[in-house]
């Protein structure tokens, strides 16, 4: 039979049809001509006649090409296995998916390694995003929360840019401002709950009656306060938290209207708040009306309120700030004594609640993003290696007419399938991670208890998974689509993924992995460094073997100074008599609890400072053994003793900073000061001793001037904290000490039983949280990078087995071969480290607020971490290289 192909081809020559498709057209048309020829022969025509009839089918030379031209862009999408044009997107996808699933099943080892990397990366991202979502993104559980603000006194002049306002200022703000729908005040209050069961110490707040409508929160049960109840005399009503209601009253619905004995007085329960309600903090259990007395409402010197406001819909934060500044300026004029240099500051409630943790969370989110990038690089490397193995398969597909885009689509389907599976496993990891994370997250972070995965988190995970798949799948897909078909189809042809371009991509991936890991490791290194410095910081006392608890005397019962003093005398004496106790003391506030009192002092022989520039001194009322118990070193003078009582001259122990501040180059012992204004000569207090500074508020803040007075002499603040130095494990004495308290007063609550070590740790919980997480992520990054380097080195050594064999056969020493192999890996690593150092230099600045005692570009950390990475990388290159030297030259040469 004649061959028509050449005849047809010449007619198609003027058209530019893809070779693969042209060959299909030729095949189809030639078959047709065969059929015509055969049918003519069957009718008895001669070969020549039959041939002529068949050729007539092609008509004149131009007919076929002209007609084909009319088929607009003939066969853009070829009928490859898997279908044709756009209309087949879905069936194509299903086919790709089925193929991808078969492929993963066939290579379980590959799949598992890739899945672990992806699941770690996606899981970490999901976990951190859950936290960010709950804490930063989810709106606060109040009505129109974006319109809620906090209003502060701005006392920047004396170091408090956001100070808690005094009641009289609050009242003026509330009455004079126009931008707010409402403004409510909140004051700390704690309650001794007595009556049924053990006496209990509960935290709560005095609040303006309009606080709840202002927040837009309804009670779970009963009602909130009426304006009438916000008046002294009619304010013996209380709202309780859901937690307290459940815990202490078993969720009894009939609690409404029942009496409750708080601080020795009877309150009526009017409502129970919903479980989610926590305002301002999660450990509040009771709310009572604030009901300012006339005296309180006129006081501009006691700064103790928190003020929350709701902006009118028309007003913005700036407008509010402007108006409050105006009002504050007016108050300065009106009350120069108390309000000099006192401004007002408005901040959003959200900012107030999450501002502290925001930078840490965003940095962690960035960090997990980097971990995921490393995981991507790893999987991309694996896929590249596999693509090299699959060159034959791709060649066959192309020969059958698969177009480049179609191949890319197939590869991307495979990688997205992989990353989606990784995402599913990652969700499991995130779920476990969140449980762990909730154990470490500082409790005082807003909404920390609410952290959970919601639809938004699932959406995030899905999106991240698909994106991840596209990112790590792109390089191998492009690589696969750009290879040389004929080369590959030849037996033994070198595949392109091992060629120069594949090697380049792989090298680039390793370099970026190293660079990104270095950034993470340096970040973690800086935080660890900061944390160690924090831990080694001298707080001014020794925290070991100290048991602490709150013993707050209820005011009505212990209103008289003598009765309180008697209680503390008995308490210290009784506890010091217990076995295992070295000494005991009481104080108004233990260090690092983030609260305490300060007073302005006057100094004998010096003029009173002008308003706004008072000598503010942190003040603690303690029992004499406080310094011994806390191991606060004495520098000069004498200690407080049991003989400093309210009939003897009043005395005070001051801190070294206070001594330096007010008596530079002088001995302060013997000098006299006054607490506030001096009315009578006996109000003067004599300095009798100097102790070392104690970090009172937080570990990171430089100590301010401090002074200590005896509880027997100073009645203006009452001690609330008991601290016990023990010979034994302090927690083992908790029950005994509590029992000793109850032996003195069976109704006296004891709460917050903690060791001083715990308080110290709690005070750096935020730092510990960011440090731990970033360290974990950096460790994951390091492992992933090491695996990546190892993988690439193994592959490159395997590719060079032949070459190494020849070298060894020609007499190369093991050392030389090792050097050859390791040096390639190290070159990549060092290039990666160089890039990483530059990036880290630029990036670590963003975390400078999280650092303590180190700069963001601490040379020590940068050097040590780089060295660590070089060592790990050298090891990861060395192991495969070592294997290469074990190659038997004969086998290596036979290896093709």
């Amino acid at each position, binding site marked *: 039979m004649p061959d028509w192909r050449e005849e047809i081809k010449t007619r198609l020559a003027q058209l530019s049809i893809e070779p693969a498709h042209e060959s299909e057209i030729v095949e189809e048309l030639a078959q047709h001509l065969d059929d015509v020829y055969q049918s003519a022969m069957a009718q008895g025509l001669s070969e020549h006649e039959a041939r002529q009839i068949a050729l007539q089918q092609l008509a004149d030379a131009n*007919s*076929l090409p002209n007609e084909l031209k009319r*088929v607009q862009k003939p066969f853009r999408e070829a009928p490859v296995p898997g279908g044709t044009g756009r209309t087949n997107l879905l069936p194509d996808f299903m086919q790709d998916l089925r193929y991808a699933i078969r492929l993963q099943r066939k290579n379980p080892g590959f799949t598992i390694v890739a899945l672990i990397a992806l699941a770690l990366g996606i899981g970490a991202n999901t976990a951190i995003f859950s936290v960010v979502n709950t804490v930063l993104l989810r709106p606060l559980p109040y009505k129109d929360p974006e319109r809620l603000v906090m209003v502060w006194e701005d006392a920047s002049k004396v170091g408090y840019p956001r100070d808690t306002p005094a009641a009289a200022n609050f009242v003026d703000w509330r009455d004079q401002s126009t931008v707010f729908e409402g403004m409510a005040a909140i004051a700390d209050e704690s309650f001794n709950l007595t009556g049924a069961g053990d006496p209990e110490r509960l935290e709560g707040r005095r609040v303006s009656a309009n606080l709840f409508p202002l927040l837009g929160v309804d009670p779970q049960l009963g009602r909130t306060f009426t304006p009438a109840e916000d008046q002294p005399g009619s304010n013996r009503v209380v709202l309780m938290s859901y937690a307290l209601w459940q815990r202490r009253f078993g969720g009894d619905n009939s609690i409404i209207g029942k009496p409750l004995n708080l601080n020795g007085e009877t309150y009526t329960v009017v409502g129970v708040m919903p479980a989610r309600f926590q305002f301002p903090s999660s450990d509040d259990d009771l709310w009572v009306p604030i009901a300012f007395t006339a005296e309180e409402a006129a006081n501009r010197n006691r700064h103790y309120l928190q003020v929350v406001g709701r902006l009118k819909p028309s007003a913005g934060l700036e407008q509010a700030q402007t108006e409050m500044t105006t009002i504050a300026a007016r108050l300065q004029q009106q009350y120069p004594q108390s309000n000099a240099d006192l401004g007002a500051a408005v901040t959003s409630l959200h900012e107030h609640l999450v501002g502290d943790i925001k930078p840490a969370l965003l940095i962690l989110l960035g960090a997990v993003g980097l971990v995921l990038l490393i995981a991507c690089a790893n999987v991309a490397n694996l896929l590249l290696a596999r693509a090299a193995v699959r060159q034959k398969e791709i060649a066959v597909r192309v020969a059958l007419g698969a177009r480049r885009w179609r191949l890319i689509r197939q590869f991307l389907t495979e990688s997205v399938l992989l990353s989606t599976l990784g995402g599913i496993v990652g969700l499991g990891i995130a779920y476990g991670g969140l449980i762990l994370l909730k154990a470490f997250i500082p409790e005082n972070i807003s909404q920390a208890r609410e952290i959970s995965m919601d639809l938004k988190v699932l959406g995030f995970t899905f999106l991240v998974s698909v994106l991840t798949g596209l990112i790590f799948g792109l390089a191998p897909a492009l690589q696969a689509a750009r290879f040389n078909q004929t080369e590959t189809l030849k037996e033994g042809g070198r595949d392109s993924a091992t060629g120069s371009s594949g090697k380049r991509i792989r090298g680039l991936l390793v370099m970026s992995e190293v660079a990104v890991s270095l950034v993470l490791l340096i970040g973690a290194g800086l935080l660890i460094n900061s944390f160690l410095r924090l831990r080694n910081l001298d707080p001014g006392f020794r925290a070991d073997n100290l048991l602490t608890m709150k013993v707050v005397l209820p005011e009505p019962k212990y209103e008289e100074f003598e009765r309180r003093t008697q209680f503390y005398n008995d308490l210290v004496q009784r506890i010091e008599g217990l076995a295992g106790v070295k000494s005991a003391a009481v104080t108004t506030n233990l260090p690092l609890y983030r609260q305490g009192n300060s007073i302005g002092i006057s100094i004998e022989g010096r003029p009173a400072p002008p308003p706004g520039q008072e000598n503010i001194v942190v003040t603690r009322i303690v029992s004499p053994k406080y310094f011994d118990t806390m191991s606060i070193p004495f520098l000069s003078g004498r200690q407080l003793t049991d003989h400093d009582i309210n009939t003897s001259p009043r005395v005070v122990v001051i801190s070294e900073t206070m001594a330096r501040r007010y008596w530079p180059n002088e001995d302060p012992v013997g000098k006299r000061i006054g607490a506030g204004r001096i009315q009578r000569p006996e109000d003067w207090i004599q300095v009798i001793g100097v102790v070392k500074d104690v970090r009172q508020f937080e570990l990171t803040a430089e100590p301010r001037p401090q002074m200590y007075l005896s509880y027997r002499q100073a009645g203006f603040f009452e001690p609330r904290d008991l601290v016990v130095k023990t010979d034994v494990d302090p927690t083992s004495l908790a029950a005994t000490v509590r029992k000793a308290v109850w032996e003195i007063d069976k109704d006296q609550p004891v709460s917050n039983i903690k060791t001083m070590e715990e308080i110290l740790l709690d005070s750096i919980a935020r730092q510990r949280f960011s440090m731990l997480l970033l360290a974990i992520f950096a460790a994951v990054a390091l492992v992933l990078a090491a695996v990546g380097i190892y993988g690439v080195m193994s592959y490159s050594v395997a590719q060079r087995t032949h070459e190494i064999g020849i070298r060894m056969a020609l007499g190369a020493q093991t050392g030389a071969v090792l050097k050859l192999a390791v040096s390639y890996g190290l070159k990549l690593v060092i290039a990666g480290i160089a890039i990483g150092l530059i990036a880290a230099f630029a990036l670590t600045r963003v975390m400078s607020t999280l650092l303590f005692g180190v700069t963001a570009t601490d040379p020590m950390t940068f050097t040590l971490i780089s060295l660590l990475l070089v060592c790990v990388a050298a090891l990861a290159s060395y192991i495969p290289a070592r294997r290469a030297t074990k190659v038997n030259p004969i086998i290596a040469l036979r290896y093709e």
Partner: protein
Amino acid sequence: MPHIGSRMLDRELKKGSAELLILSLVEDQPRHGYDIGALIERRSKGTLKFNVASLYPLLYRLEKRGWIQGRWVEKPGQRRRRYYRLTASGKKVLAAQRNSWREFVEAIRQITGIEHA
């Protein structure tokens, strides 16, 4: 329609009806190109003939529009052949074209008095 005179009318009519003819032929079963060409010639008793140069471009065009779909099919002992089948959208087009062709033929008949083709 025996003896339609001018070549031009012939070509235009063929072009107009060709799509309908092909869609009708692959309606019940997939057919390859030669089969389609041969059926047209046989059923029109030689009046309508398509050569390779016009038939295949037409098939490709219909395929391009998504009305038919070609697929290589291998049968035991035979060379593989490309079979065309009617797609779902092709079915709709065929129904529409049948209708308008029926109306067209009816209109011609009314005017010219030509009975059955």
